[in-house]
């Protein structure tokens, strides 16, 4: 019973197999999987996955540096607190195109929504490994409500938004499955889902910052501010914009054959446009950060070691990438904008790590000893990131993300 004959039979399972294997016989498909990237990925996974299993045998202590004083380690500092702003791509692109009518960015919408969806999905996966009893993850939704908790809000919103993003991306899945009727319904709810997405994103992006409002004695005063929710929300806007630039750069390079001419041809001007928007938001954010210092009258702290670190963050990792983006836009150089975008991404990640790990508990004796994560935790993070890329690639290889499906061209 070879695969070829199954495909020819035309039954549902065989047609589905054909879609999974991208129309290749199984042997050919397997052969295409042997690439340098996949070999490295397998290496990482073969170390990381057993470590994840080990967490469920011997407890969190064997894979992380998390402790009584530092309950959240790099697993969440990276996976959740950095991952969520980088996944603002979905709501940013959908709002720009569907609500504000920037139609020319249409080729990037699906990429934005998919990046966002995958980002949230994997933020939840990091969370499921980190929290004590992941099988109780639904408790805030069904068993016991803690409405005074910002985390209660985050839990609800991330769950709802994950669903919203799946619905937003569903037209691509349904086109892939050739399910014309269901797709029609999925497209009908686009505007509603976009609006829901903006509301949910506004609230939980800012809520991730608001979580730390409960720890005024622990987060360094230069990072602790009543504006934390605003900082987190505004930085998520430019994080989403530069993440679209970054991801589109990577896929245009490594998955060129999955993109149509509309995507590839418009990418440079669209990159510059996104860079322009991002730079403006970054300057606003930079100003807000300074207002934050002024609001709490923390100027004198700027000349302390943490003050220098704060200046590094806002000048070298917010203002400077903002300037690089502006220069790139002025010169109409997509290359320079792309460089600025990756630079700005590093700045967002640095900010989230500063709040969650680097300045958290800054006044505890021996602080900072916990910052270099143990090798095991690094491998867990690498393994999840690798899975993230593999599944993302799997989807882009099969579904119309970087191209319009020829049968569904009716526009919008």
């Amino acid at each position, binding site marked *: 019973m070879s695969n070829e004959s199954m495909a020819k039979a035309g039954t549902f399972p065989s047609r589905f197999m054909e879609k999974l294997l991208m129309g290749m016989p199984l042997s050919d498909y397997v052969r295409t999987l042997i690439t340098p990237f996949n070999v490295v990925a397998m290496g990482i996974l073969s170390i990381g996955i057993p470590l994840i299993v080990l967490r469920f045998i011997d407890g969190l202590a064997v894979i992380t540096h998390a402790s*009584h004083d530092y309950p959240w380690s790099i697993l969440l500092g990276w996976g959740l607190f950095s991952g969520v702003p980088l996944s603002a791509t979905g709501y940013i692109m959908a709002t720009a195109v569907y609500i504000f009518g920037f139609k020319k960015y249409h080729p990037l919408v699906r990429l934005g929504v998919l990046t966002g969806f995958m980002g949230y999905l994997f933020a939840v996966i990091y969370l499921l490994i980190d929290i004590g009893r992941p099988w109780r993850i639904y408790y805030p939704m069904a068993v016991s409500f803690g409405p005074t*908790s910002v985390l209660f809000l985050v839990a609800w919103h991330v769950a709802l938004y994950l669903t919203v993003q799946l619905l937003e991306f569903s037209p691509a899945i349904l086109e892939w499955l050739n399910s014309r009727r269901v797709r029609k319904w999925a497209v009908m709810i686009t505007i509603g889902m976009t609006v829901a997405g903006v509301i949910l994103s506004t609230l939980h992006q800012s809520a991730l910052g608001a979580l730390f409002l409960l720890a005024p004695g622990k987060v360094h005063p230069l990072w602790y501010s009543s504006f934390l929710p605003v900082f987190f929300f505004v930085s998520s806007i430019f994080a989403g914009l530069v993440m679209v630039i970054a991801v589109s750069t990577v896929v245009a390079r490594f998955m060129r054959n999955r993109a149509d001419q509309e995507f590839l041809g418009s990418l440079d001007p669209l990159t510059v446009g996104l860079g322009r928007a991002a730079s403006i938001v970054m300057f606003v954010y930079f100003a807000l950060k300074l207002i934050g210092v002024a609001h709490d009258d923390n100027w004198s702290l700027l000349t302390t070691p943490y003050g220098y670190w704060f200046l590094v963050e806002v000048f070298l990792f917010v203002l400077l990438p903002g300037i690089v983006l502006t220069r790139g836009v002025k010169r109409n150089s997509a290359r320079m904008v792309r460089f600025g975008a990756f630079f700005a991404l590093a700045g967002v990640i640095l900010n989230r790590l500063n709040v969650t790990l680097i300045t958290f508990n800054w006044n505890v004796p021996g602080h900072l000893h916990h910052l270099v994560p143990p090798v095991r935790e690094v491998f867990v993070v690498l393994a999840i990131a690798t899975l993230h890329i593999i599944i993302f690639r799997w989807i882009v290889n099969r579904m119309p993300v970087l191209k319009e499906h020829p049968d569904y061209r009716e526009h919008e």
Partner: protein
Amino acid sequence: MEEKKGITRRDCLKALTAAGGTALVGSAVDAHAYKKFSGWPDRCGMLADTTECVGCRSCEAACNRANRLPAPAVPFDEKSVFEEKRRPTASAYTVVNRYSDTEGTGPPVYRKVQCNHCNEPSCASACPVRAYTKTPEGAVLYNKDLCFGCRYCMVACPFSAPAYDYESALEPRIVKCTLCYERVKKGGIPACAEACPVEAIKFGKRKDLLRLAEARIRKYPDRYIDRIYGEQEVGGTSWLYLSGVPFDRLDFPENLPDKPLVEQTKGFLSAVPLVLVLWPAFLGMAYAATRNKEEDK
């Protein structure tokens, strides 16, 4: 003054009862009570006098026994543990730390560390599944049957009191002092207070303990600095401390607001419904404007 307020509230409630249905009154009572609520009136607490403590660690041993915690790695009469600063862990609700007198003249000072059982606990307001309860008796209790192990309470606790069972793979839980709730319910007193040979820890109604602490400060102004730690901090705690040296020298956090920490997130949470209502309106308008422009073309 106090008395007068009470009467007004009662009058107000009466008026509401007359006016509304029972359901309406039910919620109105809660809302009203919340605004005025200044804590359970008869809540208990502990007064720890750091000038009395001799660092014998009897309290640690008694706590371990009373709560059936695992046997310690070093026995409780071992003094070498004081060489480093310790904190409550998954196997110890409380620890005592030693602070040498910085002027080098006096004897060392000992400080007992455990959950302070805040009046308005930050852990409780942080918990997304309401696993924490502030009981009328004063204890802040944790319910392991609701907890899913997010550890936000540990982030939120201003005293870093809760510990977590990182070693447990499938049933990790938060570990912290219960103010010997079960013993107190049965009319007893917490094990640490009972065990203390020098009465450096005293159990009682919080308001009585405050009066007692004030009296001690008044009586021995040279012995104590004029402050009760825990009276105001983060809205007040059930554990109250007296000291002869400034509290920051004993690692008491001195950067905490006097208001309960839940106040810090209230503003944000009250903006949530506004965003829920206003955003669709604004975005709807933006969408309509875009559509309108397209139609004009």
